[in-house]
């Protein structure tokens, strides 16, 4: 491989990781934009999403990478996989919001954040106790079609991941830009007080933010499985830290910002993995987070969160 091919290959990998991080970052950004809350539960909602996706695919009799599907069955299985993991995670998100966070909404201080940390442990350990710590073989029914571009390999799974991520992000953009509820969400992010006075139902807005964010985390969990062919109980932390960094990098609260940030973080990760070594990629990502927060807290596209001062 020449340096150019290597670069291209890492760009392909980075874009796929980036698609996953973007979807996950959207969940952070939606909730933060509306409530100014870092939702630590999101880390493990993502992990649970990947487990739900795995169990769903296994329910179709798929295991490992032996069973390859094509045509309509493939599309059907993937659609059901995404639908179940997204709805499942969405409902978990709604439950967290409705039962554990809503009672705390008027409480000042770190109570809500501590609750999400607690929920994160609970999700993690429930999966740990039921499914164990071992790395699981994530069923992957995609045919191993790939194309060679110069010296780099573009696999079908990467194209698929890009397409799915683009569809979901396009859908979300449409939702927040044009629908009534989406506009209400943006209004609440700007000024919750004013939005309420204009008749926006804040409960509904917060709940939709949790549903959408968590559903995207579910999709992201399924993509993780399809990309790495594995599911594991401790994947939440690293992916979540990257996604949160992506959200901050793009400008927290900012929907296009989360998408851009996710792609950049994906590219940075694959690049730094190549250059410095994978063991240190957490340090690199984290360094970026600190640098952005210190020098450009508004992120690349500008922060969009309620101003509570």
């Amino acid at each position: 491989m020449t340096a150019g091919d290597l670069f291209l290959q890492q760009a392909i990998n980075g874009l796929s990781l980036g698609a996953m991080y973007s979807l996950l970052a959207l969940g952070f950004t939606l909730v933060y934009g509306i409530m100014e809350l870092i939702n630590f539960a999101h880390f493990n909602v993502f992990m649970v999403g990947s487990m739900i996706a795995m169990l769903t695919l296994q329910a179709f009799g798929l295991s490992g990478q032996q069973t390859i599907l094509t045509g309509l069955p493939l599309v059907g299985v993937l659609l059901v996989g995404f639908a179940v993991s997204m709805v499942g995670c969405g409902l978990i998100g709604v439950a967290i919001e409705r039962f554990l966070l809503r009672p705390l909404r008027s409480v000042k201080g770190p109570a809500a954040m501590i609750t999400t940390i607690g929920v994160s442990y609970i999700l993690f350990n429930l999966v740990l106790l039921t499914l164990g710590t071992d790395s699981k073989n994530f069923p992957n029914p995609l045919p191993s079609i790939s194309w060679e571009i110069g010296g780099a390999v573009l696999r079908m799974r990467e194209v698929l991941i890009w397409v799915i991520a683009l569809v979901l992000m396009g859908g979300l953009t449409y939702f927040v830009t044009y629908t009534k509820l989406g506009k209400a969400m943006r209004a609440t992010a700007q000024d919750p007080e004013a939005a309420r006075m204009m008749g926006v139902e804040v409960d509904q807005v917060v709940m939709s933010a949790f549903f959408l964010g968590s559903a995207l985390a579910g999709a992201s969990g399924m993509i993780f499985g399809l990309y790495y062919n594995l599911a594991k109980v401790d994947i939440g932390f690293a992916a979540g830290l990257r996604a949160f960094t992506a959200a901050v990098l793009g400008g927290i609260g900012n929907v296009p910002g989360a998408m851009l940030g996710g792609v950049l973080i994906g590219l940075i990760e694959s690049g730094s993995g190549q250059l410095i070594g994978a063991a240190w990629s957490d340090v690199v990502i984290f360094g970026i987070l600190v640098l952005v927060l210190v020098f450009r807290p508004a992120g690349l596209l500008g922060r969009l969160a309620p101003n509570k001062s």
Partner: protein
Amino acid sequence: MTATATVHPSAALNHQQRSLLLAALAFIFFTLLPQFWDNDGDLDSLANAMSYATLALGLNIVVGFAGLLDLGYAAFFAIGAYYYGIFTSFQVMPPWSDSWAPLAYVGLVEKINQGGPDLVHFTLSFWIALPTGGLVAAFFGMLFGLPVLRLRGDYLAIVTLGFGEIVQICARNLDWLTNGAAGLNGVQGPKLFGYRFGVHAEPYYYVGLVLVAFLVFVSFRLRGSRIGRAWMAIREDETAASAMGISLVNYKLLAFALGAAFAGMTGVFFIAKLQTATPEMFNSAVSSMLLVMVVLGGMGSVWGVVVGAILLQLMQTWFLPQMTVWIHDLGKMTGIAAFGHVDMVQWTQLIFGVILVLMMLFRREGLIPAVRRVAPLSMEQQTAHVVRGGFQGLDKIGRWTPGTGTALDIKDVVVKFGGLVALNKVSLQVPEGGVVAVIGPNGSGKSTLFNVITGLVEANSGSIKFQGVELLGLAPHQVLENGVARTFQNIRLFSNLTVLENVLIGEHARLTTGPFGAVIRPPSVIKEESRATEWAMNIIAMFGNRLTPRWDQPVTALSYANRRRVEIARAIASRPKILLLDEPTAGMNPAESLELAEQIKSLHELGLTILLIEHKLDVVTRLADNVIVLDHGDKIAEGLPDVVRKDEEVLRAYLGRSGGH
């Protein structure tokens, strides 16, 4: 003065004494424990529990006192541990040269030979490492803290989470320094006058006990001092804290560094006891366990976190294993095989999560709350004895010399928020000893004017001079140090603190006690504290008995009007030269407004220059020598109250007489 102060703050000593007595009893009990409980395993568990208690005490300073959510606290534990480990084990051995000889002479290193060239073996004494480990960790605490402590609290949480992870990654991957995942071996145990601690738990138990006692003592001393009040003020309301003269960055750094120092010392102790160090000992599970200990016991509650630490340790080392045995027995009795495979110890983290969630939902103040409940007032105490000024006890407020010139000189100040011009070239003067009122409709820029004077908002251009000192560019706490104190339109008190504590925080900038003074409490500090309390009580008494009987109540328990009064008292406590009052009578009934207007007038007669935002024109007319009218960021009128009241432009702005714009 008819105020009936039934309980004076000196009575609060009773509470402290009770607390002290309890501590002494607990200390004696635990000191004697090994005499009648001679089980090495249990003592070992207790010594571990004490390590976690010291860690929880340190985290409590950061999270409980200063309100900084630190999710990577185990990093400092690791730093202390590896510091001691590296300097007593055979991990790092530079080649010997004679320049090491002086260190060898004092016993910090020794020359060894493992077949090859001579090498240096570090032999740092435990007793030196214990305090210096604290210092090293504190250094890293400041290093980590400096870039991120300016961030909002919620970002701090995720950044500290990352720091915790990075320190662990370093421990795992810097093989030459830490021996990687295998960990450091051959860490030396402590020696005392030739006695080697060895592997028995008892000596470690005593060291742990002394450490806990010491850190409990330090925590209490800090909490009841100027330092502790500053932290709690930051925890309750950063903006108000900085406006009351507290340097946010300095005090956050101090909390971070002290918390880290506690952890570093514990790290030294922990590793000396185990005589090995692996990265897993400091993983995020430890940070999360410590957070659970603090939350369970009560954030900010010293006894609470000690109890929380001991409870969780008991749960992990005794209760869960014991419960596993019971369930297994139950399985045998009932013949249900599934019970035989249950291992409750694996549930630990799940239980942690459940504890966090349940505590936040149902008992946020923790098992032993930091805030004491206060008895309700008697009817007699609740009866208002109104004082309409005529203050005597406050004559220490500085006097102005009439007609000496301009106190506050604001020139062409422009403040823009994005495209919105909040203040457009506003100029105004407040003469020494004057009372100037700023009026104007909502959104006219009045509060922005106060914010820009006090450093909460940056000006785009212009100048604000107070007694010749340029205030623009100063941090809020520096503005206060220059003698400018303010209140806020939407009252910003330190909610979970008492009336007295709120007013004492107002004095922050005029007191000098540092962290060492707060802990050692020499006569000078005791004197300063009692003077500060006396001054605060004098100010509280300014409002008749409205606040005096309530000095020990949390401000959340007060009525709206009383909260306004506390805010004014807090501002006056800082011995300001000029007082900025933002709608002081908002929400008060006419009688209360008048009462307060008289009191403000009395303060003015005592020597305060006053700049006032007010809507009630009768109050303005009663107080002000000069009125400034703002509208949409422009100054549209200025003059005597009666003149301004009749000004066409003002009437239009206020009442829309000539049909708006």
